[in-house]
């Protein structure tokens, strides 16, 4: 149970970071933390104490194995997260070129 609570705490730290921080880079890091918390949760869902990787081999019987599907899904989700992070960082660099600041409260030309 403890690991699930810690996972929730990690998610909340990420959310706090996205909502409260003024620096764009910190917001991006917050997004990363949130994503990792969700990925961690997904892996925990498939974990079993003392479980092994379910690899099918000759004359070997794995009786206590972890669920491999969440691991495969998390790999996909990490790759997606990488794409999003790369794109947002690229946008952040361009934003710095245009506005000369990373402060989100000073980047507000859109109103209404």
């Amino acid at each position, binding site marked *: 149970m403890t690991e699930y609570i810690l996972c929730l705490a990690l*998610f909340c730290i990420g*959310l706090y970071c*996205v909502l409260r921080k003024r620096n*764009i880079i910190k*917001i991006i890091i917050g*997004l990363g933390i*949130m*994503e990792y918390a*969700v990925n961690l*949760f*997904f892996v925990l*869902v498939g974990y079993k104490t003392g479980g092994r990787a379910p690899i099918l081999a000759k004359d070997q019987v794995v009786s206590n194995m972890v*669920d491999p*599907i*969440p691991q495969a*899904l998390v790999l*996909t*989700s990490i790759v*997606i997260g990488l*794409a*999003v992070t790369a*794109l*947002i960082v690229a*946008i*952040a660099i*361009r*934003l710095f070129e*245009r*506005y000369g600041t990373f402060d989100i409260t000073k*980047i*507000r*030309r*859109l109103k*209404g």
Partner: protein
Amino acid sequence: MTVLSFYVVIPLGGAFLISLLGKRIKSSGDILANLSTFSLLVFSLYSIKLVFINKVLVYNVGGWVAPIGICMVLDGLSSFMLVTVNLVSFLVTLYSISYMERYTDKAKFYTLFMLMLAGMNGIIITGDLFNLFVFLEIASIASYALVAFGTEAEELEASFKYAVIGSVASSLILLGIAILYSYTSTLNMADISSVLSGKPQSILVNFVLVIFLTGFAIKAALVPFHAWLPDAHPSAPAPISAMLSGVLIKVLGVYAICRIFFNIIAASHKAFFILVVLGLISMIVGAFLAIAQNDIKRMFAYSSISQIGYIIFALGIGTPLAIFGGLFHLFNHAVFKSTLFLTSGAIEYSVNTRDLRKLGGLSSRLPITGYTGLLGSMSISGIPPLGGFWSKLVIIFAALQAGHFIFATIAVLVSVITLAYYLKFQSYAFFGKLDEALIKIKEVPLTMRLSMITLGLICAISGLLCVPAFKPFLQSAVSVLLSGNAYKDAVFNALIR
């Protein structure tokens, strides 16, 4: 049925070829993009016939049978959404040929556009929950990049905001999928539904429902979650605004909510009442904020929020007539909102401004843009013979039939406000005296005119969808939603066949 995979393969292949050839051969981007969207339109019209004969079709990706492998499912609702998306996307690519000359790199534009289209078609056609998440991310990432396409200060700012809010939504959706997987140990939509119906009602399912609702409501821009839309939609190039407002928020938001609420989880009446309330709030807030705007595209963006409110409101009522009205309005909104955004793009193309206060008397100089804008505005504000009138009428009747008298009155009043701000748009932009400085402007190029005229005509005749000859097209989509839990049986039966 191999044809099911084409809806994803064609745009993905198109994106790959365009990025490969676009730099070397000048017009290859235009030709390839239009060819692929046109073939997608033909295939999606063909899907109507397939659904008419077979009801439900299943394709196992890579030959792995469904609950273990990923499957694609084509039923009435998917076919309806495919037609809507691909109709708009074909006309938008036609429009982009001339419009995107203003920007530097057309090939990159088409590549991203095709990726977004692949994501949207994938969401509609897939029968696997995690696969839906992957396609959702493909469509979202492509749209973040497309919003920032002009790389001006405002566009980057809007794109950053959209990307951050969109990623939070995606994380929530993934969290929901993780919890649902831990409860049912399967990812196939039909299989989840059958596992859930075998278990007693649990609070965990309601929790998942709330998480999904939050995630998809951010994608659909329902009112407490709408902050990104009025910045992101106006900042994108006009064809992309038309795609984002016309179909993206519907596929990523409304379609996903429908599928999960009606078919997978089979939510309770309380959950549907949340949809009614969210829809009502979006309707009112969107309409009031739209009146105050002076930027054309910003006004249309707020109007989208308001119209999506109508759709969600109708789907939340949940009676057969209301669902019919909601889906009918979804189709109509896709058509008239893309007409209006393309019209605003044409104005920007000729006049170089989007500020309503600087315009006036344009209908004498831009006659075709004026007429299509008029058709779109009349349809969205519900002037009788046009499509928008019939769908709003059906929604209001359905609300009355279900006993929601106050809500029905509010829907009528919001419709009056809609008329007010579209009159404002018409009188500021097209009527009145022409400014001296605007005397030299010319009508837009042929392909842009062609796509606007086609969309305008569809606006005018889309009311025909509720006459008996064309009704089965909509009715098959409605019956999928009404069948609720029976979705899983339909899919499993199609698998055995």
